[in-house]
C-alpha cells in the first residue's frame, strides 16, 4: 500500500499549484480552474484518509463536494459568459468597477 505521506505530498503540491494559479492568473476562467485544483487537492486528502482508516464517510464527503463543485462550475461559467457579453473581457484586472 502506498504510504499516506505520498498522497499528502501530492495533495499539497496540487494545492500550491492551484493557489499560485488563483493568485497570478488574470483570466477569470483560469482562476476558476486553479480553484478547482485546490478543491480537488482537498478531495484527494479526504479519499486517502478514508482508505487508510477504512471508513467510507470520507468518500461520501468527496461525492458531495464533487457534486457541489460541478454546480458551482456551471454557475461560475454562466457568470463569466454574461460578464463577457457585457464587458467583452474576462480579465479580472479590468473588472474592477466595484470599489470606492
Amino acid at each position, binding site marked *: 500500500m502506498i504510504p499516506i505521506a505520498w498522497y499528502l505530498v501530492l495533495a499539497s503540491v496540487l494545492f500550491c499549484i492551484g*493557489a499560485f494559479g*488563483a*493568485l*497570478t492568473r*488574470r483570466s477569470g476562467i483560469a*482562476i476558476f480552474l486553479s480553484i478547482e485544483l485546490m478543491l480537488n487537492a482537498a478531495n484527494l486528502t479526504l479519499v486517502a484518509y478514508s482508505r487508510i482508516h477504512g471508513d467510507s464517510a470520507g468518500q461520501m464527503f468527496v461525492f458531495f463536494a464533487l457534486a457541489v463543485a460541478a454546480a458551482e462550475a456551471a454557475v461560475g461559467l454562466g457568470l463569466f459568459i454574461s460578464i463577457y457579453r457585457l464587458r467583452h473581457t474576462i480579465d*479580472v*484586472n479590468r*473588472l*474592477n*468597477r*466595484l*470599489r*470606492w
Partner: protein
Amino acid sequence: MRALDYLWLIPALPFLGAAVNGLLVRNRQKSLATAIGVGAPGLSLGLALACLIEFLARPGHAPFEQLLYPWTAGALKIDIAFLLDPLSAIMLFVVTFVGFLIHVYSVGYMAHEEGYRRYFSYLNLFMGAMLLLILGDNYLVMFVGWEGVGLCSYLLIGFYFDQDFPPKAGRKAFIVNRIGDFAFLLGLFAIFSQFGTLSFKGVNAAVLADIGALEAPFALGLSLASFIALCLFVGAMGKSAQIPLYVWLPDAMAGPTPVSALIHAATMVTAGVYMVVRTNLIYQLAPSISLFVAIIGAATAIFAATIGIAQNDIKKVLAYSTVSQLGYMFLAAGVGAYVAAIFHLATHAFFKALLFLGSGSVIHAMGGEQDMRKMGSLRKHLPWTYRTFLVGTLAISGVPLLAGFFSKDAILGAAFEKSPVLWIVGLATAALTACYMLRLLCLTFLGKFRGTHEQEHHLHESPAVMVVPLVILAAGAAFAGYAGKIPFTHFDWLGGFLQSVIVAIPGHEAHAAHHEMGLEAILVAASIAAAAGGLGLAWRLWGGGRGTSADEAMARRAPGLYRLVENKYYVDEIYDRLVVRPLRSTARFCWKVIDSVFIDGGLHVVAFITELTGDLGRFSTTGNVRQYALYFFAGVLALFWWMIF
C-alpha cells in the same frame, strides 16, 4: 336620575366642543361653529344649574364627590375625582354663568373676525380647563386645570398672531405664569411629601390630626405651613397678577375683548384667590405668610389703582383695575376674611365682565379704536352700552346698594380689624377706583366726540346678541351683593353657605367679624365717603364735557410724576433691564458659545475623525479581485500559523 351624577359632564362638554370645533368643523361652517361653540357651554350651564339646585337641597350642603378613575403609580395614589362643595359651587355658578354670557356676546363681537371657529374652540377649551380647576377634588386635578387655563390664556392673548404685539404678550403671560407655577409645584411637592396625599379632604384631615407638625420648622427658616403657604401664594401671584408678577395682565389686553372679560377679569385670574381660600386651613396656621399675602394684596391694589388713573387705553384702565381688585381679594384672604374674598370674587366677576364687555361694545362701535382721548359722547349712540356701563362703574366704585359696595365693605371691615393701615390703603384704593372709573366713563360716553368724522359716522349700538348679555350682567352687578354680608344686619347668606369650607382649627378660633353698630356705622360711612370723594373728584376733573383737559393740566403741572405714572412706574423697563436682557444674553451665550462652539464643535470633531478614517481606509478597496484573493490567502495562512504554533 340625579343631575349630580353627571357632574363630570360639566367640564367634559366644553372640552368636547373645543375638540369638535377645533378638529372637525371647517372655517366656512360658521353657523355650525357657533352652535357648537355656544351650545357646549350652554349645556354646561344648564347642567351646572341643575347640579346646584340639587346641591342646595342636600342636607347641610354635604360635599358631593365623584370618583372617575383612581390613578395609581407606585406610591402615588391620586384620584381623578370631582368635588362639589359650597366653595366650588359658588365658583361653578360664576364660571358657567358669566362664561356662557361671554360666549353669547362673542358671537356678535367676533362675527366679522378671521379665525371665528378657532376662537370658539379656544374659548371652549378654556371653559373646560377652568371647570376642571374649580371642580377638581385634589391639588393635582386643580393643577391640570390651572395649566390648562394658562395655555388657553396664552393662545387667546396671541389670537391675532399676524400682528406684532399679541404673540409677544402671549409669551410674556406664559413665561411669567411659569415662574409662579414653579413655586406652586414646589408647594404641591411639599404637601405630597409631608401628607402623602393631594386631595383637599385628605390634606385637611392630615393637618388637623397633627397641627404641631405644621408649625415645626421645615425649610428656609419657615414652618411647614408657612413654606407651603408661601409656595402656593407665589403660584397665585403669577396666575392672579399680584406684585411682582402682575406685569403680564395689562399686556394680556392684546387678545380679543371678550377674552379679556372672561379670562383676564372674571374667571381665570381669580383662580389664585380660589386656591388660597381652598387652602385656608394651612394659611390660618401660617399667620406671617397670611400677613404677607395681605400686604402684597394691599400694595398691588393701590399700586395698580394709581396706574389706572393715567392710562388712556380703555382696556388698559380696566386691566389695571382688575389687578387692583385682585389685590383687594388677596387683602381679604390675607386678613382671614376668606368669605369676603370669595364674595368680592363673585361680584367682581359680574361687574368687571360687564365693564370689559361694555368696552368691547365701544371698541366695536369705534371700529377698533381703544384710545379714550378719541372717544366721547358715545352715550347718544350706544344708549344701552352706556346704561349698563354706568351700572358697572357705580358697582365697582362702591356706590351703596350695588354689588361692589357690599363686597368691598366686607373686605374693609375685616382689614380694619387686622390693621388700620391696611384699612386705610384699602380705602384709598376704593377712592382711586371710583375716580379712574368715572374718568373712564366721562371720557368715553360724555362730552363731545373727539374722534374723526368717519368714526362718528360709523357709530352704532351693538346688536342684541351683545347687548342682552350686558343687561343680564348689569342685573348681576346690581344685585349680586345681596347674597353676602349686608351691613347693620346679621344677614350673610354667603357666609353661612361657605361656613363648612373655612375650616375651624381647635385653639385657633377666629372671632366673628361682627362689629358694634357704632363702629360699623363709621366704617360704612368711611367707605361711602371714599367712593363719593373719588367720584366727586373725577366729576370735577373730567365731568361735564371737559374732555381730557384735566390730564393735560396734570401733565403740565407735575410732568415727572405724570410721566412716571403714565409709563406704569417703568416696571416693565426695569424688568427688561434686570431680568429679560440678562436672560437673553445668557441664552445667546449658550447658543453662540456653548452650543455652537463646544457641543457642535465636539460633534464636528467626531464626524471629521470618522470621515478621515473612511477616506484613508477606502483605498484598500481597489476593486481588484486578485488583490482580494491575496488578502484572503494571507489571512488563511495567518490563521493556520496562529492555530498550529
